[in-house]
């Protein structure tokens, strides 16, 4: 591959992987069963799209099943959102290049709920931090955070440098957290994940968590992990008695670690900057991660028979796989009846958040996603956090309510 016998694209991929592997002292490569690439046009820009097009022009094909993270433009709904034709053109060019290389455009960050979850011990090359932390922690698969270029390289070579979370030693717990109160709704799970993520604060820390007695749902762990990865760049956690590599605390090596208490006060301190009860709200967003069919059902039920305020927009992001079920179940109709807009195959923060905010006059944003409120401060928003129920009640009144 390095010699160019498999073409220039594969040569680039191997050179890229060797550079990264050298930085992390990888001794060899490991075969991967799947790759998943994050690549929205805002991140790629003209330069990134041209780079991918140039690879595709060599007629290279991916060597393992490769899927994609959410797109930045819903090509069926971009002008009303304030996105430009140039953004859509960039998106179309990227999609065409990916298809030419044999990449399956799943456009989802919940592939572990909808496409093909990795299995225990499976080595994969996944992008999207939420996908990686869930796959590592809940499924027991093995992936580093693979940024778009590295995920693409793994797709082209069918392997990845063996470092980080592909190695047993790096999956052992390094911090031990004791939770005082079990989270209830999705926002609570996100806030707990965010708090632990901020406390751990490094890609190389592995939290083990005690004090969770009730087995969480996939959606709860989805929000928990996505927030932990967002606030702390953490790619793996263990929950004692629940996640597969930690049926007992000693399994993950947590027994001798100092206990760090995660107090209710610590969680409240994290949430405090995102509290704005009584403020006008411009947009309510359900995204990051994309909603599962169960979340769509819950949202539809909350929307039933109600109407959003004329001054508050409501955006819901889900995957194409979930969307078709949500249509057939009538969930989309109920959300639209409330005045919400369901976007397909995108995620709000990945779709030119600054530009669509400016185009629509959105500043005060409300969400039940601890991840999205963390991200959007840098995009000119004033983000606030509330439960799904409070988000819908706020959208109805146009004012943030408890």
């Amino acid at each position, binding site marked *: 591959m390095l010699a160019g016998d498999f073409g220039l694209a594969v040569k680039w991929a191997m050179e890229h992987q060797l550079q990264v592997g050298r930085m992390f002292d990888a001794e060899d490569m490991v075969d991967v069963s799947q790759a998943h690439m994050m690549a929205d046009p805002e991140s790629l820009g003209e330069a990134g799209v041209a780079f991918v097009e140039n690879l595709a022009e060599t007629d290279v094909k991916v060597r393992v099943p490769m899927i994609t993270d959410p797109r930045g433009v819903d090509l069926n709904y971009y002008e009303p959102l304030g996105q430009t034709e140039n953004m859509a053109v960039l998106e179309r060019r990227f999609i065409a290049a990916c298809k030419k290389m044999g990449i399956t455009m799943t456009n989802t960050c919940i592939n572990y709920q909808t496409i093909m979850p990795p299995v225990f011990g499976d080595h994969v090359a996944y992008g999207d931090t939420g996908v990686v932390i869930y796959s590592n922690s809940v499924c027991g698969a093995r992936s580093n955070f693979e940024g*778009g270029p590295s995920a693409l390289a793994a797709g082209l070579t069918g392997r990845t440098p063996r470092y980080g979370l592909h190695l047993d030693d790096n999956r052992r717990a390094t911090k031990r957290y004791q939770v005082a109160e079990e989270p209830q709704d999705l926002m609570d799970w996100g806030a707990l994940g965010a708090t632990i993520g901020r406390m751990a604060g490094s890609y190389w820390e592995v939290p083990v968590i005690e004090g969770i007695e009730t087995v969480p749902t996939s959606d709860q762990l989805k929000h928990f992990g996505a927030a932990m990865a967002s606030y702390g760049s953490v790619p793996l956690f263990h929950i004692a008695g629940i996640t597969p590599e930690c049926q007992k605390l000693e399994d993950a090596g947590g027994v001798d670690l100092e206990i760090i208490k995660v107090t209710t006060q610590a969680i409240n301190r994290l949430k405090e900057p995102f509290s704005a009860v009584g403020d006008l709200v411009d947009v309510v967003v359900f995204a990051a991660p994309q909603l599962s069919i169960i979340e769509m059902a819950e949202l539809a039920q909350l929307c039933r028979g109600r109407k959003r305020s004329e001054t508050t927009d409501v955006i819901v992001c889900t995957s194409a796989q979930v969307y078709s079920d949500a249509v057939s179940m009538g969930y989309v109709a109920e959300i639209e009846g409330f005045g919400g807009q369901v976007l397909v195959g995108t995620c709000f923060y990945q779709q030119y958040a600054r530009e669509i905010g400016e185009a629509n006059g959105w500043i005060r944003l409300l969400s039940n996603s601890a991840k999205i409120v963390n991200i959007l401060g840098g995009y000119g928003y004033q983000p606030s956090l509330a439960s799904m129920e409070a988000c819908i009640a706020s959208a109805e009144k146009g004012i943030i309510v408890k």
Partner: protein
Amino acid sequence: MRKELKCHVGIGPEVKGVALVANDNFSARYDLDRINGVFSRPQHKLYGKSYKDVILVLNTAKGGVATAWMLYEMASREIAPKAILFNSVNTILAQGAALAEMTMVDRFEDGDVTKLIKTGDLLIVCPDEGKVIFAH
């Protein structure tokens, strides 16, 4: 006064530039206005500061995978740092640096790099040798 700092072998070419230092973390998506080349997250310690052509010295990486593409995109428009030095890098930043051919090193032997280097220091970063030289 120190003459050089040892670190882990890194990525990218040898570069010379002026340091911009903060004991804070980094994500291109979360923290930057990439059009104008400034830190845009109000809570960031470098809020409002330009990162163009400087050597950023920060604690660690945070957040998402987008930074990998974004470093390449920033470099293509020449509104990018010359190098980024971290106490501890995550995989995304290293992968992005490799694609963007941006200099990046981490893991300094003498301790917290955000204390060892001060804003305004003139530095030469040598990733292949794993060292940073004070040029003044």
